[in-house]
């Protein structure tokens, strides 16, 4: 067997798949046929994917946010790891340092495990990635009430940019005219 073939087999052996089921009424249900979802991993194993998903959920525990949102964080890490062998190795080592039982442990145990590795580059980089990716997902936007870009709808000028009513309005001198009015 050539070394390239060995690499290929090793690569195939390592890759995995994450699966889940969408909640009833999930905003994603409109986008995917049926309620089950599956994420093919290009560089990470199923176990590694499950540990990283639990890592993301422990960092940013939104009980009303389904696993599909956290899977986006894993997908982002997996895509980068497929391009960057050094990252793949550092993710693998990081996952190993958390131990095989991490994904199924209770939250207090997971928090304790993360506190132990908080000063590592693995933790810090994954924390930033989790925030960048999770809070940019449509599922998180629905949870947080964030409405995103409004250019396609003419901006917020006519869509509530000044609809706060529980504080006094600002006098004209310190505000300004609404264009077109």
């Amino acid at each position, binding site marked *: 067997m050539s070394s390239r073939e060995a690499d290929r087999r090793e690569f195939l052996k390592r890759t995995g798949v994450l699966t889940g089921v969408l909640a009833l009424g999930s905003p994603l249900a409109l986008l995917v046929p049926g309620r089950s979802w599956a994420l093919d991993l290009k560089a990470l194993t199923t176990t590694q994917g499950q540990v990283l998903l639990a890592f993301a959920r*422990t*960092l*940013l*525990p*939104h009980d009303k946010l389904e696993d599909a949102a956290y899977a986006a964080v894993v997908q982002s890490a997996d895509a980068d790891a497929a391009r960057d062998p050094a990252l793949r190795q550092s993710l693998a080592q990081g996952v190993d340092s958390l131990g095989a039982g991490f994904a199924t442990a209770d939250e207090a145990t997971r*928090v304790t495990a*993360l506190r132990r590795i908080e000063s590592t580059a693995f933790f810090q980089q994954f*924390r*930033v990635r989790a*925030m*960048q990716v999770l*809070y*940019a997902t449509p599922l*998180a*936007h629905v*949870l*947080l*009430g*964030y*409405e*995103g*870009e*409004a*250019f*396609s709808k*003419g*901006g*917020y*000028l006519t*869509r*509530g*940019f*000044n*609809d*706060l009513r*529980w*504080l*006094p*309005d*600002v006098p004209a*001198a*310190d*505000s*300004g*005219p*609404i*264009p*077109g009015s």
Partner: protein
Amino acid sequence: MASFALDDDGVVVIIGSGAGGGTLAHELTRRGIKVVLLEAGKRQTLASFSQDPGVAYGQLTWLDARSSSGNWAVAQTTPSAPAWIAKSVGGTTTHWGAVTPRIADWEIRARSAYGEIAGTSLADWPMPFEELSKYTALAEARLFVTRRNGIPGLPASNNFKVMYAGAKKLGYRQAHTGYLAINSRAQDGRAACIQQGFCVQGCKVAAKWSTLYTEIPRAEATGNLDLRIESMATRIEHNANGRVNAVVYRDAAGREQRQKARAVCVAGNALETTRLLLLSQSAKFPRGLGNSSDQLGRHYCHHVLGFATGVFEQPVRMWRGTSQAGLIEDEARNDPKRGFVGGYWLEMVNMDPTGVALAALPYGWGRDFADVMDNYSNLAALMMVGEDLPRAENRITLSATTRDSHGLPTAHVHVDEHANDIAMRRHGLNQAKLVLEAAGARRVLLSEGSPSSTHNMGTARMSRDPALGVTNPYGQTHDIPNLFVSDGGVFTTPAAANPTLTIVALALRQAEYIERQLGSRAI
């Protein structure tokens, strides 16, 4: 658009197309001076500006890893990204918040006003305040700044209503929707702001002033501008007499090119300008161009920043509306009784969920962090921007560890904050907290960890004495008469104001000077 030959030695080469370089290019070309404008980035359009913040960041940002050190938070939190600067036609004027307060008279004579302070390299600017003010007024007219020249302010948004209510309860007298280079009405051939809140991603209606769609197309229309995009300057060359005579750059295909020049103006933002001048060192100028005084890269300033985020019982929906249309002026004064010299501005800031998580909130994770984020709709936020004190050892150098795709060392940024900076941040964040609490916040989170710097100043400081700075009062290097710096690097001290308005003012003034120098054959 014009096309000039590589061996045309009559052109002025400008490096960088942002607030300084883009404005200078327009001012020179409209006077009939031939300009080759080298821009390392691509050219976006209103249509191509992405509304996906992650994609937009990649479109506009200079992504090369840099390195950093010192006691500032950046060296711990984002060591490979000490600054967030643009690489795109229009430079940082594509992603800026367009906040344009004026520098104050006492700020440009900081050494006289503050006295001698140990551990600083304070100096007075080498120009009278009246001179700077004259060009600041011209810049305000050029940028159509709100609340100046009879232009109305922007209308108050939800986030601003919170800031305003708190400011008034606290007794602040000067709170309003700000001085912004954002159209409060259609003018200058550009639309009025539609309060979309995506200023940082590039304004898709051009309500926000950017050289991308004002100065640069107007310069092209003169027939005297040759804009070369994806053209990364790597070295400035000089002749035996010590005059610069060519700029070496990599074109879009990665080929090395060499453009001859009568004069060169570097406007790459303080980090990249310093890097290029250091990379251009030669036998005649072994410390880099313009650096016989050993002042190049020193006195680096980036402002005292901090964020305050309030959690309210009712919705604010701060993402709706112009990103930074809110200002409190009262703390922008020099009052040493507060425990520090210099002043700061309190500026409203809207952020998307990712921005809140990564920039506005203090470092964190877990249940409490997620609970704050769950309240995203009920958050209001403001930031402080204050004057940091220059220090000779706060310095841009060539990195020993990071390189760009051409194999050249990128910038290394070292910052040790002065005790005055720390005292100012403590005061500013406490005042911001009081504002939010006065408006009804049930909890306020303060972020002292400043994110990557966007205001970069002081590294080619203007001075009358060639031993004490890099450039004269016109941004002309003391060492090489036909080499200029045309960005925030020339600020002798940083003042508290967001720097773009002053960068434009100095570019307007520099253009007149260069025209005179060319006309008299001094260069």
